[in-house]
């Protein structure tokens, strides 16, 4: 059971490295009355992006920073409530200056607001004691961020659409010698509004513990496939950002989380993409501190 508890803690850390994929815990649910909280900073700064054909083109250096609260609470042993709230989200782009005469050709801009927020409930579908645990999650993406900031309306801290995602996770813990580990796979369907295309999502992760379960290392792969049933980026003017329409990617994340005490820990992550369309082509990073109230 220890490894399952650890898994739950760490999986949350992973998910926060890609906030728009936030949904937690794999097939495991929190036990009634237990909670997990995390405050973290996630950011990406990019001077290039993946185009609609998967090529890479330059862009003015643009950054998005999300400072967020993540909470997970066991309502019952089978039902877990989850919230991801980026209480401070900032998107900026650099000013451009002429390399010839130093004059500003395009001023820098930034927009600050709260960001798009997720609330979710997860229900455990497998029998207690099963080797494999299975859970379904319903996630609602609330468009609390700003989708029309800056002088031309293209600076965004949110996508401006209300989405509903259904996700299923299948997980199992195991040991390799003295190393505790787990694996998880998931699939999801994300129904998006406001002429955004719906999405099929899938992914998996493996994690292993070291230093008597104080340190966890995790590798995760996520895939988002657009169903291309919304407006194009040009029609929707949603840009090729983390908030773009018809974004697709296969990404990886490396995560490390360290328990300083039984309840308090720190985490850091690095994420990138194997291939992608219409999204920044630069790594993302996160750092966070979490509190695990068993």
């Amino acid at each position, binding site marked *: 059971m220890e490894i399952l508890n650890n898994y739950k803690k760490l999986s949350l850390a992973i998910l926060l490295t890609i906030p728009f994929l936030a949904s937690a815990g794999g097939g495991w649910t929190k036990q009634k009355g237990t909670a997990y909280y995390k405050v973290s900073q996630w950011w990406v700064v990019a001077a290039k992006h993946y185009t609609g054909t998967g090529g890479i083109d330059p862009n003015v*250096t643009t950054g998005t920073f999300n400072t967020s609260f993540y909470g997970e609470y066991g309502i019952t042993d089978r039902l877990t409530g989850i919230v991801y709230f980026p209480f401070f989200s900032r998107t900026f782009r650099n000013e451009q200056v002429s390399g010839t005469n130093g004059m500003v050709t395009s001023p820098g801009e930034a927009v600050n607001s709260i960001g798009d927020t997720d609330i979710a409930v997860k229900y455990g579908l497998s029998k207690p004691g099963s080797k494999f645990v299975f859970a379904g999650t319903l996630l609602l993406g609330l468009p609390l961020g700003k989708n029309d900031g800056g002088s031309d309306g293209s600076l965004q801290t949110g996508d401006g659409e209300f989405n509903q995602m259904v996700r299923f996770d299948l997980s199992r813990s195991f040991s390799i010698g003295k190393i505790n580990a787990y694996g998880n796979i998931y699939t999801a369907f994300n129904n998006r509004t406001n002429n955004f295309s719906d999405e099929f999502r899938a992914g998996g992760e493996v994690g292993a513990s070291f230093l008597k379960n104080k340190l966890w290392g995790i590798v995760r792969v996520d895939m988002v496939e657009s169903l291309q049933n919304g407006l194009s980026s040009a029609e929707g003017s949603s840009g090729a950002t983390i908030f773009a329409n018809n974004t697709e990617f296969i990404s990886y994340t490396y995560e490390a989380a360290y328990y300083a005490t039984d309840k308090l820990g720190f985490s850091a992550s690095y994420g990138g993409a194997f291939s992608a369309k219409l999204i920044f082509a630069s790594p993302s990073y996160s750092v966070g501190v979490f509190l695990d109230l068993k």
Partner: protein
Amino acid sequence: MKRVASLIFILTGCIGQDVLMDEVSPVIRITNPISTMEVNTTYQFEYMFLDNVGLETQPNSIIWTTSDMSRLTIDQNGLAESLDNGEITITVFANSGELEADTSLTFEITGDPTMMADDERTGKIMTTSSYQLEGDFKLFKSGDDLIVDIASNYVADDNLPGLYVYLTNNPNSPSGGYEIGAVQVFSGAHKYTIPDVGLLDYDYLFYYCKPFKVKVGHGDIE
């Protein structure tokens, strides 16, 4: 205090500076060229001087010369007087600090009324990015309006957000250019009507992604 500053930096992400490589050769352009000039008449030539980023600027000095003063004279304000029939070449040289440019115009002096040079320019749009963008176009005057006539072989990628089209004098930057507007047509023939812009005022049809502040492609206006 340093910790607080570091925390603020992490939380806010400061706006930095990107450098746009936008240097071009200075250009002087005769904006009302003629193909023939009636003998024993005068004609006022006009010019436009563009600096090394394609912005119009006033030169420190301007020098007009003619290839044959017995056939045509021209003063330093560009006022020409035709004296005899035959081919003639005028040259204008401009200087602004270290920036220099010159251009020449050859035309025929005849007994017929003065004729303006070609009233149409053409070009081919080509992508300079990973996004598809191609097609032929021509520019011509219709009264005071300039018409940008995009041909039926035009195609632009509609995955690109915030695509705008400009007329510019710099193939790398829209600065100082004329913003025609947001691209609404992504394939096939279409036209833009632009008031009070001359046929020779700009040298590039320039496509630009505004949200990303990056060039997508352009067409030289020949």
